[in-house]
Structures are given as C-alpha cells and as structure tokens.
C-alpha cells in the first residue's frame, strides 16, 4: 500500500464522523420538512409519527411562506444581525485602537473589557432588561427620573429657570414594548460581543508593522489617512472573521428574544422555529431550511462586501 493510500485510509474515520455529524441532522431536517409531522393531533393520529406515507411535498414550505410572521421574522433577523455587526465592529475597532497604546492600568482595563463575554446570554438578557433598561426600576428609569427631578428643581431657579421651563418632561422608553424590543436585544448583544471584536482587533493591531506607519508619516499621511489606508486594510481579515462568526451566532439568537418580549414585535427565524415546534415539526423544519439558506446568503454577501471595501 502506498504511503498516500495509507494516509487516506487513516483519515477516513475522521472524515466519515464529520460527514455523519453534519449530514444526519441536516438530512433529518430536510426529511421532516417534506412530511406532515405534528406532535399532537386528535383527528389525524397518524401524523404524529414521522413516516413517508405522510408526504406533503412543498406543502410545509408554502405554509411557512404564508404564515403571517415569516417575512417579518426574516426581515427582523437581518435587522438585528446587521445592527449588531455594525455596532460591534465599529465599537470594536475604536476601543481596540484606544487601548492599543500603553497607559497605566492597561492590563486591568483589558480584563474588564473582556469580561462581558463570560456572561451567559440568558443572564445577560435578564440583567439588561430588568436592571438597566427597565423604565421604572432599571438604571434607565432611575436616570431619567433623576434628570426630570433635576429639571423640575431648576425650573424654579432664578435667572436660568425660564430656560429649563421650556424643557419637556422626559419619558423613559419601555424596551419590552412591541416597537422597541428589537433595540433592547441589539443593545444587550452588542454589549456582550463587542469584547470579542476588541480582543481580535487588538491582537491584529499588535502585529501591525510600525515601519509602514513611519513611512506613511514621512509620506505626509495624518492620523486619519494612516487609519484609513493602513490600519483599516490591515484589519480587513480580522473584521471578516468577526463578522462571519457573529453573523452565524446572531442569526440564531433565542434567549434574549424570549426573555425581553417573548417574541412580541421581535421575532427571528429561530424564534419562529421554536413557535412552530410547539406542535408542527414539519413547518419548523421547513423554517429551519429557510434559515440555512438565509445564513448562506448572508455569509456570501458579507464576505464579498468586506473583501471589496477593505482589501483593495
């Protein structure tokens, strides 16, 4: 047996395991998406066991496409992921550049910055929605209450009172409401994932060639030009990595959405799958396949965009 064949043979178990690992769940999802399969149906008990005889063709897909929340969930998935990506990358780059310089206490600042990443998503959501964003008891409520009290007080002050009496009373935002629950999710996930971006960008910044910077200084490049023409392209690859990894993670957000508003006004595809899966496994599977397609489109689109804008 040639060396090459032996190597192939020895690789086989690993390759097979990986194939099974990935293909089995995907095939089962595909299979379920083409049959009628529900957990509970008194009139048609045969639908409660998966079988080829319950074949439904594209019926589940049609059902999902017609479901009232589907397109909203797709749109909302993209909105949430897009916003989080934009915010984490922007904040990540800015913070990474800020703490890349030497300053006293840098070690501690770095550890503190990374710490949100170690909080569990559900805990993160509970913390934010109850302790920070809550319009009455959270920091937001307290802060806005405080500002309102201060303005009321200043309205009676001599000289400047007339100015403050023009101010309205501020209303705290209720982040559990239909219109705002998506923003709450975006805020909390951004808070949690910015450290990840910072960490990756910081590592990359440290490998930036200092002589290139000096050459640019001599070439007359100011701070902005150095950032735009050297640092940003240098960060192109790490940004692509951060965007890809986060896109995959955030397309499947669930805990935050559940905890903030139980999906009121704020559903994404995974949440929709969860709702269908209460009974209709067939529809849930079809939605799952849509989610896979969406994830691929997003991935290809993002990679192209990053490659175009940063790498040239």
């Amino acid at each position, binding site marked *: 047996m040639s060396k090459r064949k032996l190597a192939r043979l020895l690789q086989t178990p690993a390759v097979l395991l990986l194939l099974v690992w990935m293909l089995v769940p995907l095939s089962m999802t595909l299979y379920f998406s083409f049959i009628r399969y529900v957990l509970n149906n008194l009139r048609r008990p045969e639908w409660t066991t998966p079988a080829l005889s319950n074949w439904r063709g594209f019926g589940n897909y049609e059902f999902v496409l017609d479901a009232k929340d589907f397109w909203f969930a797709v749109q909302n998935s993209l909105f949430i992921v897009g916003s989080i990506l934009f915010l984490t990358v922007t904040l990540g780059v800015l913070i990474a550049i800020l703490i890349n310089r030497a300053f006293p206490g840098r070690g501690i600042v770095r550890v503190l910055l990374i710490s949100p990443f170690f909080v569990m998503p559900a805990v993160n959501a509970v913390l934010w929605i109850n302790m920070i964003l809550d319009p009455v008891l959270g920091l937001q409520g307290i802060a806005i209450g405080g500002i309102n009290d201060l303005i009321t007080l200043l309205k009676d002050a001599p000289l400047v009172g007339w100015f403050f009496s023009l101010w309205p009373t501020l209303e705290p935002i209720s982040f559990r409401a239909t219109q705002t629950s998506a923003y709450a999710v975006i805020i909390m996930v951004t808070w949690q994932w910015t450290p990840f971006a910072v960490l990756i960008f910081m590592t990359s910044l440290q490998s930036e060639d200092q002589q290139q910077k000096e*050459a640019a200084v001599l070439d*007359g*490049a100011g701070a902005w030009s150095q950032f735009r023409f050297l640092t940003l392209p240098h960060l*192109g690859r790490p940004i692509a990595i951060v965007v890809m990894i986060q896109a995959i993670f955030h397309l499947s957000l669930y805990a935050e959405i559940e905890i903030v508003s139980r999906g009121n006004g704020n559903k994404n595809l995974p949440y929709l799958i969860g709702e269908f899966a209460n009974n209709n496994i067939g529809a849930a599977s079809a939605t799952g396949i849509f989610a896979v397609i969406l994830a691929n489109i997003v991935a290809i689109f993002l990679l192209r965009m990053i490659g175009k804008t940063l790498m040239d």
Partner: protein
Amino acid sequence: MGRIVLENVTKKFGDLEVIPPLNLTIEDGEFVVFVGPSGCGKSTLLRLIAGLEEVTSGRILIDGEDVTNIPPSKRGLAMVFQTYALYPHMSVRKNIAFPLRMAGMNEAEQNTRIEAAATALNLTDYLDRKPGQLSGGQRQRVAIGRAIVRDPTAFLFDEPLSNLDAALRVGMRLEISEMHKKLKTTMIYVTHDQVEAMTMADKIVVLQSGRVEQVGSPLDLYREPRNAFVAGFIGSPKMNFIDGEKAGTLGAHTIGVRPEHVQICPKGEGDVWQGKVGVAEHLGSDTFIHVHGIDGCDPMTVRAGGEVKINHGDTVYLSAQMDQIHKFDSEGHRVS
C-alpha cells in the same frame, strides 16, 4: 537644495545616551554614508534627521532652517527602510502614488511622475502587482520609487540593501550610485558594510557608540585613519595590528599594516616576519593568506596574487611597505 547641519545633537532613550553631543555638516548634493558596527546609533541618527525621533537637545537645520521641532512630513525628506515598509494592501502604483496623493497632487501630474519613476526603476511591468508578489530587489525598487516621486530635498536610506542577496546588492549599489549622479540630490545612506560605504560615498562618517570617529572621503579614511577603530573598520580584509616589540622599535604602541601592503618574500631579502600558513583563501584574482605564529599579531592576513602557490603549513617570510605602516599610541590615536 539639501544642506543638513546637526548642531550639538544628543539623543537619550531613558537614561541611555545613544548619541552624545554630535556636530556634522552634510553639503548639498553630497552622498554621505554613516557607517559603523551594529548598535552604534546609525539608525537613530538617521531617524533624528527624519524627525521620527525627537532630539534630546541640539538643533537640526535643513537649508539653514531650524527643523528641530518641525514634524517629519514637513521636512521634505524621503526615507527608504531596510524592510522596505511598502503598504501591503496597495498595488505598486498606489504605493508610489501614496505620497503624491497625501500631498493632494492632481491625477495627471501623479501619473506622469509615477510613469517616470517606474521607467527609471524598471518597474513598468509590475505597476499593478501587490508588494507580496515581488522579489526583494523589486520591492526595494518600489520603496525607492516612492521616495523619488516626491522630489525630496534629501534621501535617507537605512541599510536598504541588507535584506538582499549578495549579487543583487552589488547591482542595487550601482543603481543607487547612478541615481545620485543623475539626481544630484543629497543622500544620507546608513550601512554597517564598509564595502558599500567605500564604493558609494562622497563622504563617509564613521560612528562608534554614537560618536563620530572620523569624517572624510573614502580614500582619506583609507590612507589616513585617525585612530585604530577607523583603521580596522575601513578596508577589507581588515588591517593587521601588531603590538609589542616590533611596534616599539617604530615608536608606537601599536602599528597597523593592511594585508595589501604585506608581501611574501624570499628568506633574507628584507623579511620582517616569519610564520606558518593557516588558511589560504583563493579568490581567483587574489589570495588571502592567514599566517600564524607572528609575535603580536595572530593571524596576520596577507593579500597576494591570484596565482600564488601556497599551502597549509608552509613557512613564509613576510615584508611590509614601510611607508604604508600606520602608527597608533596606547589609546589608539594615530601618531605621525
């Protein structure tokens, strides 16, 4: 124009004084080489002139104007780095265009200059490539191109050829020299290689621990080194230093004689030294013979003709051209 004057310039990194007070004048259009062993402060000095490091004290003048507190980009100098420092994400064209773009030059003028530089440096076929797709020599050309297009008052080179292989180095050396003849712009060139210094310079500045040991034309330094350090540093192979009795008879602590001024002679015909051949390096044009067993100098290097027949272990008798002997006192200063 490009007359650069350093007045009592010093540089400290923390408590470490890298450049003690230093005075130096570089005339307009001169090709000046800073040469010295690694870590002697050549790069630091160049970076001080460029403005990439701030002087601890002293003044730097360019064409009579005090630039000590002027930022690097306003000094009108262009620098070529040892590691090329090309912008990896930009094509060769964009790399060369970068300083022009930063200066806000219009597109048409930019293109004329880029074309001219590319033609002069044989880069026309590579303008659309990225630096990563070029060889070391081509990268260094791009770096030089980026410097030329700016039409600077002076060029600063920091060991630009150190990362190239020997053959390429010789070629690039010539190209840079020719470029200087053509442009007649002041050039300051840093190297640790005395051959580069000797072949390229109008004026060599020999540095040791940040001190200027001697300034002069290559032949001045070769003929009349001011001290033993310069004598040993300039010239290849290195000068032979002989101390002890022989030096004493000539009224010096140490005497120095270059390998090319020592000859092999028959016994009894004016021979001064006798020794055994260790290694003979045959270069074809020359033979460098390392002779052992000579009092006060071991081994002594002798430069002989290419065809000389000599083997390991042979006993040889050596004489020296007495008018080519350099005498140094116990501190290494030249005595004449």
